[in-house]
């Protein structure tokens, strides 16, 4: 396992280095900078120049890049230019909120996807399978901004049982936090649940058609035991790979869902920082997201290798 991991580390480091170049360069190529944002639409050029000077934006680009990487290496991310506060605090708070939302959504996706997959593969009645197909297609087809509005309309405006937006951290007040989390997590989870459900359904169908299943059935092994102990473990490896990919999608999808539910996560922070050209926040945030994707892919590789011994010896 260790050598398997070591073989993948250099490529992960290279991806991060290239991403840092790209993020830094692209941000400077986009018109507008933090100084003009801070100066406002009624400002004069003298005001903009004073702010540029204070922020060090007059320095040559290589110097600015080196300062950024140097700060990253020492762990001191410094202050935000426009939003305010320390970049580390901003990203830390946003990350906490996004991870909470993503994990909540992942939990929903696994539960719903599991139910849909197992029902779709094992239901005997045609209408059950048709219902599963309809739910799956609906969850895939309806975009989160529509699902989100419908959920708010039903649970917040009409029934008045759940808040329409905002966040109370789960660790601060779990009873309130879970109520704020339910709608955005469900909204974010639905498309992933549908994808996971379809993969699981297909995997289970293949596993259930294998000869050993027929043999076991003939030997009188209980269908429930056959499903949970034999067919499901064989159907899971591709689904586990997909969970890794879907986690990335959930993180990406959180940007939109956070806006709909006023959830103060990384998506909201990224949007705000990008619109205001808050260079340090955008740079650190994008690099962090690349790092998360790289780590998730590494973990997925490891999980795959753990589940399938042939991968370890390749």
């Amino acid at each position, binding site marked *: 396992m260790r050598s398997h991991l070591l073989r993948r580390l250099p490529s992960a480091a290279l991806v991060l280095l290239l991403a840092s170049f790209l993020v830094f360069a692209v941000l400077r190529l986009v*018109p*507008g*900078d933090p100084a*003009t*944002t*801070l*100066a*406002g*639409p*009624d*400002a*004069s*050029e*003298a*005001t*903009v120049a*004073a*702010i540029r000077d204070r922020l060090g934006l007059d320095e040559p680009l290589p110097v600015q890049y080196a300062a950024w990487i140097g700060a990253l290496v020492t762990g001191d991310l410094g202050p935000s230019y426009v*939003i*305010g*506060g320390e970049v580390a*605090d901003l990203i830390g*708070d*946003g990350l906490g909120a996004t991870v909470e939302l993503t994990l909540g959504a992942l939990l929903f996706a696994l539960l719903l996807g599991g139910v849909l997959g*197992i029902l779709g*593969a*094992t*239901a*005997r*009645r045609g209408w*059950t399978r048709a219902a599963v197909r309809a739910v799956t297609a609906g969850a895939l087809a309806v975009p989160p901004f529509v699902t989100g*509005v419908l959920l*708010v309309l039903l649970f*917040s*405006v009409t029934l008045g*049982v759940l*808040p*329409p*937006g*905002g966040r109370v951290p789960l660790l601060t*007040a779990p*009873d*309130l936090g*879970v*109520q704020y989390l339910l709608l955005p997590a469900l909204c974010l989870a639905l498309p992933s649940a549908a994808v996971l459900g379809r993969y699981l359904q297909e995997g289970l*169908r*293949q596993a259930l*058609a294998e000869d050993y299943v027929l043999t076991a*059935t003939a030997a009188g092994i209980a*269908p*429930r035991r*056959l*499903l*949970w102990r034999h067919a499901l473990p064989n159907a899971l490896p591709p689904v586990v790979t997909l969970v890794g990919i879907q986690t990335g999608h959930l993180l990406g999808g959180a940007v939109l869902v956070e*806006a*709909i539910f*006023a959830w*103060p996560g990384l998506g*909201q922070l990224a949007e705000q920082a990008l*619109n205001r050209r808050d260079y340090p926040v955008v740079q650190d945030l994008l690099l962090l997201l690349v790092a998360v994707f790289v780590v998730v892919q590494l973990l997925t590789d490891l999980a795959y290798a753990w589940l399938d011994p042939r991968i370890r010896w390749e």
Partner: protein
Amino acid sequence: MTASHPSPFSAVTRRATLRAAGAGTALLGLGLAGCRSAVSSEGDPVPAGDAKPRRGGTLRIAIGNDFTPALLFAQSAQSLQQGLLFNTLTRYDDRLRPQPELAVSWTYPKDGRSITLKLREGVAFHDGRPFTADDVIFAVQNLQNPVRAAQLRATASAVTGFEKHGDHELTLRLTHPVANLFDLFEFMIITDRHTVADAVAGRKLNGTGPFRFVKWSPGTGLDLVRNDRYWRAGRPYLDAVELRVAGQADALVSSLRTGQSQLSFDVPGKSMALVKSTPSLKITDYSTGAGAYYVGVNTTVKPLDDKAVRQAIAWAVDRDRLLAQSLGGYGLASAAPWPRSSPAFTEARRTHYRHDPAKARELLRSAGHRSLKLPLLHSATPGDTSIAEAVQYDLAQVGIDVTLEPTDPATAQKKLISQSMPALWTLSHGFAQVHPSTLAVSAYPFNEAKNTSRFRSGTYTRIVKEAWTTPDDGPAGRARYARITEILLDEAFIIDLVVRGQVQVASERLRGVSLNKFSQARLDDAYLV
């Protein structure tokens, strides 16, 4: 891919599925039933008429943009909290007459080269330190610093001398008379000079206002509590104020409709129909005129260097339709930048350009053009896009084919300041709601020395400077404002469309809210019933 086949399994029976679903629902229901509810309860019926002010309660305000500490000393999209945490020296009434706040009286000699302020005694900052004349000196010097990006820096910079007469009297010496000095006093918040670095970082906001700073959570909002040593006895009524960010219009309106928040000034015009259909919400239009939408014209791009073509555009725009469709009817369709409360406002100037496509076509023909093709840059926000599309439609009716250039706000701002706008653009400007000279001195699009339109005129420069340096709102002063407006209307380098209304959406349980001219909310007298 395997073929679908009837499953021989009965591992997941209908009974098992129903049991699992029932158990899950019951578990969730029981779990939530045992919790505190995150949904606010409306409680007793709302009393009819003016209920007596009541102490206590937490007011939640939904804001479209988060507090930006770096813009604490500038007029920005989110200046609400300034009036909650801080005080200003004076405050305008509805007719632009300054009223006492931290300055209780003032003496303004005829030569206009100084002003003596008598300051309120017994005022303390939130940390207990007494407010003195040194805090006013710091406040002025702070705005003179360009990194504070204060739009009234030019006016603050005219103050070059400070003479203290004890702790509560002060004379400000000016290099030249300044007509908009009280705009500065309305705009300039009095902050603690010892913690200003913490203030612009959002760590500590120490003022003399009715509410104390508790914390700012970026992306979530601000938490404030009652200032028990506030200088107005018995105020404020509210125990706490929470400003909560809801950047998306749908989220903001849902927050109001469900009672999660009780006040907002950020509901976009297109969402007002939904608000109107909610009986528990009340709409108030303050008509402060704190902003106005306009079409900017680059006068160096041919054929817009011809005044007749610019005037044709001004005649072609249907301001009333734009107001109704894009802003929900809240605002004032106007060819001039001034709101009704401005001393420069007249009905004739407001309607100087009415919607007259025939006249626009005639002007274009007289300038030798039957059709034109022009780009129009606009900020790619839903509100600004709607306005740009309305302008595009109107100009198409007179033969001007407009290509829209949606741009993100930061890029639009950069182009505005660096004079690199295309032929046309549409954005909004501020500063017409206060002294008329402030518009030409502090709003870059109107600046006489350098503006985005690259418009220069000796007459305009002279009259703007005269209006700024002559503190006179009498007939002579009004004649100068009239002259400025005539030049703006005749030269049409900035074509004003609509003076924006400051629309408040509030729960019917909330009373006593007011705003100053710079959209700083005043909740001294606010209470919940």
